């Protein structure tokens, strides 16, 4: 056993040594509180717990791997956050306490700001919802459902089914077809939201 052993450097440890975590950090910074996003161990509990995973192009676990890998465009174009139903199963089951639902909200914000949303059905719904809130201080369910179903082709096919439902909303539930009454402090609310929008951009 006199053979001389030559020590060689182990094969490159791969991207770990040179990992660019800027995308991951950006998402984490945009999420209120400590998201623990960098703690993901890729166990897949999130996707396995997700009631709408079958409608997602990537599972939440895959999204977190893609964030770590810096795959910005792929993540921004993914429908995953838009299919999230905010049930928080993943959040409470995550062994690393990652605030997954909140991260999904951040990803939606980032996708809109980078103009990479592929299917606007969900983001348009959010926009219409909030336009009522900005104008009245309250939400307006009937107006929202009407606009959403009439302006999206894939939803318009079911409009015939929506008519009896809309009638039921008016007759059975006694809902008003008119927008809600404006809150008294609407001007103050607008100032608050405008200032918040400026702070968001900073």
């Amino acid at each position, binding site marked *: 056993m006199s053979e001389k052993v030559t020590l060689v450097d182990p094969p490159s440890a791969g991207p770990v040594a040179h990992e660019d975590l800027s995308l991951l950090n950006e998402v984490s910074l945009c999420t209120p509180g400590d998201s623990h996003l960098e703690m993901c161990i890729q166990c897949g509990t999130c996707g396995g717990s997700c009631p709408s995973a079958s409608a997602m192009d990537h599972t939440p676990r895959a999204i977190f791997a893609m964030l770590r890998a810096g795959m910005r465009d792929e993540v921004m174009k993914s429908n995953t956050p838009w299919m999230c139903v905010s049930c928080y199963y993943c959040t409470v089951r995550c062994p690393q306490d990652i605030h997954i639902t909140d991260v999904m909200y951040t990803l939606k*914000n980032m996708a809109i700001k980078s103009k990479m949303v592929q299917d606007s059905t969900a983001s348009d719904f959010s926009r219409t919802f909030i336009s009522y809130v900005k104008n009245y201080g309250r939400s307006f369910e009937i107006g929202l459902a009407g606009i959403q179903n009439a302006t999206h082709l894939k939803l318009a096919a079911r409009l015939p089914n929506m008519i009896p439902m809309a009638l039921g909303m008016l007759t059975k539930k006694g809902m008003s077809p008119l927008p*809600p009454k404006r809150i008294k402090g609407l001007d103050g609310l607008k100032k608050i939201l405008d200032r918040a929008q400026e702070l968001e951009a900073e």
Partner: protein
Amino acid sequence: MSEYLFYPGCSMESSAKAYYHSVMSVCKSLDVKLNEIDDWNCCGATEYLSLDITPAYALIARNLALAEQQANGLNTIVAPCSACYLNLSKADHYMHEDKAFGKKINTALAAGGLHYDPGQMVVRHLLDVVINEVGMDKVKERIVKPLTGLRVAPYIGCMLPRPDYNKRYSDSEHPYELDDLLRALGAEVIDFPLKTACCGGHMTQIGPDTAFELIRRLISSADDYKADVLVALCPMCQMNLDAFQGQMNGYFHTNYHIPILFFTQLMGLAFGEKPENLGFGSEFVSAHEAMQRIGVQTPLPDAAKPAPKKPAGLPMPPARARAGQKITIGNEEASK
């Protein structure tokens, strides 16, 4: 007499009036005084958080700031809607945990002359207040008409037990609070395995296929367990499972009929309130038959109302007659 600040939320004034009326009735019976926060605004549901995080939290925090201003010695906000409850407690939680974030939201609030000190208000759902503050003893004292014989599926949904920042519920997936309450009312409570599964949330408006599947799981499970009614405690859950049950049946070619009631409607009944004062009859899937089984007369659904007698006018062709088809006038059986 216990007193709380009250955040009703938008649905209580539109699609969930049944919830509003039954909440008011039940709170009166339990000597709970609710002071509605003056000039509250929408909590933004899950929609504003999807667009712009800072304005979304500022929108929610305006309600917390108003509540703090109007507190007058009180420190608890009661919200009967799970989404409102979670948003209010989420804003308080993150403003408290993340000081820089709290400061940012307060900078925005200052533009409207408001300020909120994180941690000042305690946000609670009505179920939690009934069980942990009012107490089961007082609930039992008020019962004059137990719901004996009514088989109920207790459905809590997502946003109450999860993420549960203040650890108020017995479990994040199988909490027993609602089961206990319904059992105290005399109902037969099934061990509902999907009690905290998702109702589909806003997916009915975005991806109906996904929503219908989530609704089907809940309804078919309640049906498997032979529940007479499913009990909800959130306007969104009630709306999805009730108003969309028909469309879901159409989508899957099923014929489920599970009435969806608010827990306060059943509490009100057990406390002896008249069904018409508790919003019964406003549900799409009628609870009439289920309630009749325990001797409660709730308003009849339209379909079950006796059909108006047809006036004996001129003989008309049958409605389905098409062009080119032989039209039989009068008694079809007799002419064959």
